[in-house]
């Protein structure tokens, strides 16, 4: 038995579950909407965002630009104009603050609305455009309707990509290698091709396994 490495006996009686997400052949599961409401109020994190200094992030503090024409931005339009350049760039929030399972699981994790609300309970935005977007996430929390993000990075269902192993080897700053520098992206777009040749190039350079069943099973 492989008992020792199992996540067993975790005591939540019933898990959130939503059946309206149809996942068909070539299943690749992502985080699901929850219809369970948290008992407590989200912790109001008085964030001073000191994290950047702690992780030794080398990029200088950048001021995110004011975007007037969103139509010119690359990448799909999202239900909320969430700006990685503000959060990760200007405010220097580390990637793992929101995508917090990336170092332990194959799935990086999409932050729960609770995570957003943790800060935006306090932070309301300085300009009317910001305020309008932040209101959307506050409404999402109040109405218990999470936003439906449009997926940017997707792999075919026959590919397994263990995020945790890549973070383990390359470090928590290495997200940039595949996702591009989101600290300067007002709207996230697909940076790399994510095609197999692109994966294999890196595996060849680093002289790591290129076995097919590493990713395909």
């Amino acid at each position: 038995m492989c008992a020792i490495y199992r996540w067993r006996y975790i005591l939540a009686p019933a898990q959130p579950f939503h059946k309206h997400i149809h996942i068909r052949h070539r299943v690749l599961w992502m985080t699901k909407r929850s219809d369970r409401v948290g008992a407590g109020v989200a912790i109001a994190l008085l964030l001073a965002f000191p994290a950047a200094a702690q992780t030794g992030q080398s990029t200088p503090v950048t001021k995110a630009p004011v975007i007037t024409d969103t139509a010119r931005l690359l990448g799909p339009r999202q239900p909320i104009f969430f700006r990685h350049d503000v959060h990760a760039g200007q405010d220097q929030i580390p990637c793992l603050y929101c995508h917090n399972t990336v170092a332990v699981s194959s799935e990086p994790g999409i932050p729960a609305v609770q995570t957003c609300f943790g800060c935006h309970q306090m932070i309301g935005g300085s300009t009317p455009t910001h305020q309008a977007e932040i209101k959307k996430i506050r409404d999402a929390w109040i109405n218990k309707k999470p936003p439906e993000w449009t997926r940017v990075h997707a792999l075919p269902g026959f590919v397994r990509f263990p995020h945790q192993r890549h973070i383990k080897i390359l470090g928590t700053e290495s997200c940039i290698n595949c996702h591009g520098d989101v600290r300067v992206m007002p709207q996230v777009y697909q940076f790399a091709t994510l095609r197999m040749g692109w994966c294999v190039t890196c595996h060849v350079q680093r002289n790591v396994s290129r076995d097919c069943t590493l990713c395909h099973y």
Partner: protein
Amino acid sequence: MERRRFLKVLGATGGAAAAASACDIRPEPTQHLIPYLVPPENQVPGIATYYATTCRECAAGCGLHAKVREGRVIKLEGNPESPINQGRLCSRGQAALQGLYNPDRVTDPMARGPNGQWQKLSWEDAIGRVQAKLREARGKGIAFVTGLESGSFGELIDGWMKEIGGRHVTCEPFAFEALREGNRLAFGTAAIPSYDFANARYVVSFGADFMETWLSPVAYQNGFSRAHGFDAGRAASMAKFVYVGPRLALTGMSADEWIAAAPGTEGMLALAMAHVIVTRRLAPVPTDVARVRAALDANAPERVAAAIGIGADVIVRLAREFAASQGGLAVAGGIAAQYANGAEIVAAVNILNYVAGQVGKTIRFGPNHALEAAGSFQQLTELVADMSAGKVALLFVHGANPAHSLPAAFSEALGHVAYRVSFASCLDETAAASDLVLPDLHPLEQWNDARPRAGVYALQQPVMQPVFPGTRHAGDVLLQVAGKTGTFKEHLQTSWRGVHQRYGRSRAFDDFWNEALQHGGVYADAPAQAVHLTLDVARAAAPEKPALGWKPSPDEPALVVFPSIALHDGRGANKQWLQELPDPVSKITWHAWVEVHPDTAAKWRVASGDIVLLKSSFGAVRAPVWITAGVRPDVIAVPTGQGHKAYGRYAKDRSFNAFELLSGAPTPYGGRAHVVSVAVATTGDHRSLATTEGDAREQGRGVIEVLSLERARALTRGTHPFEERETPRYADQALRGWAEAQREKASLGNYAGNQPRWGMAIDLAKCTGCSACVTACYAENNLATVGEELVAHRRQMSWMRIERYFTGGEAGRPVGAVVTPMLCQQCGNAPCEPVCPVYAAYHTADGLNGQVYNRCVGTRYCANNCPYKVRYFNWYNYAEPGGEWESWPDPLNMLLNPDVTVREKGVMEKCTFCVQRIRGAQNRARLEDRTVQDGEITPACAQACPSEAIVFGDLHDKASRVAALAQDPRGYHVLEGLNTQPGITYLARVVDAVVAEA
């Protein structure tokens, strides 16, 4: 031109067409990512969470670990802490998932409208209606029919029925009435004791199918394989197993000796053996045996041998062996306990155990089985009589389907009941004839408990939110109907305060409760009780009634109805995994059959697949013939489980219902006779059986090797009795050169360094053929079920299959059967690999025969070249929603394992030793800066195997279990002469019999 370039060119010319076709490789169709509102505690996306709960597929009450990914249960595994199943799980348990996600589940409360059509209604309305009917029915007769509920739910119903003057009847089609009555006759207690198979040194089964449906099959099979498995280091290896019964059941296939006693004479054989033990003083005989002395004398071997159909010398030999083993265990059940004299047969077998001094040793009263509390068939028939007489005004049915097991009588009686309420989650026959359906939660979604045996308190917790939000826990509904406060969970906790008082007084209740939830329950020992023969035990030895009312012959055969291992009493019939699971004996899928002996078939001039009309005085069915030497010539046998008139898309109108042939009158012991006289008429119709059997005989191909016990004992380390089957010597030089070339090739680039070589060892001395591994593989690897039509075309997808071959039968040799699991052998020199034009089949650095689905173009050359026939081709798109061959209609698709690709049409697939588990373990190990430990990876088949016959590991790790087993002198490779160098080592079966070496 290289073959790969050839295909590239070919691809370029056909490129335009390909781009437009469906085989275009594009990213995942998932368009949106929907975050959690609040992340669930302790759950990480991508990592499974395991919850301990209890299996409710039969009365055994095995412990479960439910594997939950992102809020959905995707796999069930045995709970290693449960003293019942020790971490193992059978096919029916695995398939509980298909009950949970069944597409035919009732989603909301429904009531019959004025024109008889179903109308959905709200829960408040539904509960209001029940309360109104309850008021009306007070004093006019209220009855509640359930399956066996050994825990708090049963107590709730008992208490409520007492309160309102109703009665609670349990309906289990296999309720073991004869076992209870036989124990009462012999020992004065109607309890079902604990049978210690693990410590038995000699096992005789009088019809008991203890690896199939008898009481607690996983537990018994696990114990049995410990006793019966061959262990060269153990002094008294192995425990001999003798099976007595008119038909070679799965349990009988493991036997060293099959005695096809005439039906109904099993008791005589037991008494005759007891007679030998007593008269020859083979064991220290207890004094109270004098009470049965006369009965034993009446059953002396010479007197009864002819009736049984074996020689008196055989009886004497069996008795000697049984007594000499000093650890004999005789069990009676199955068909032997379903004759009219079933209770007497059980009592006779009890006497045999008693005179051999085994009662209190291998059979212990005290830790009694929960089924002792089950109702009897007699109670059900009494209820039916009352219903017909109009004495029942309100009937509740939960977890039982008597309209299927007692078709005519119950359905007729239902018509006389004023109001019928069903808690069924699928519209089975009983629910379909109801006025109101209140869909219950599936056991995996609800709180409950079970007491599978005295001292074991197994808890059930919801492992996920209900699949259908419109369903409700029957316990909650009942509490509301009864006007009581609180939820069923609170009721459950209240009743657990008693357990807390007994076993956890030192801790607070909440801590005790949480701990019990973590472990799946509370496991304690029950004190043993001493039993002695009763005063009127002699009555048992002189049956009042003959077993059968006539002497069976091929012209007037005895028809035996036996429980199906997969479908049980029919409750599994709407699960594709169980329908497609080949019966371990007949290998027939999706259909029932009638077993006929070759001589009888010749007499009737029928062939396999010919449809005959079986007519008893109670009903008639049309059944296809399956000719087998594993049944007596004067007996024909049919399985239960099929022939549903409702229940769901996979069960409905499929084959015939064997219960229709049986009498509805109870036997003297309150049970039901599963044997009946039938008239057989040929119809001239034929039906090709959807069988997965290739050849009924092994034909000496070396697929299954058998050693006699004597020879196996003589083997020493380093010897290889199967050497003669290996590659001829003249090929040695060529092989060496080939091996060198392989090593060079294999150590290039990132293949250099120490790679594991994954391998497996399968001990055929332990494998019983129960097929739990097959269903586990379906569950783990997203195997499609293809349906009867495609199975008939041999297009089933079972990566793991059980091959069954009959032995003996000619020249007076006894008939037997051998079984072996057959899966991809992960050849070191695989014939499939070099023929793949696109390198989809290739050799991985760690010794697997990889199969890259997205590379595969479906030439099927690999399957053509595979000598083991373990590659399976997707002829259709089984995952296409709404498609003709759809295998996972919504919401069944929720049980798909997200770690395994669902294959498309045109793709070859096969076993890869659960490569997703291997990679998962490697990922975990890498994260923790260590290497993978031996035993850390367990493929689904090895994990499920109730006999623990399968061991997986790294052959390069000399300290691993599998490396040691690969060196076992019993080890051999299937078709070794082909030089495929398989990664699977089979250990030859060992048979303790006069004739062996098939």
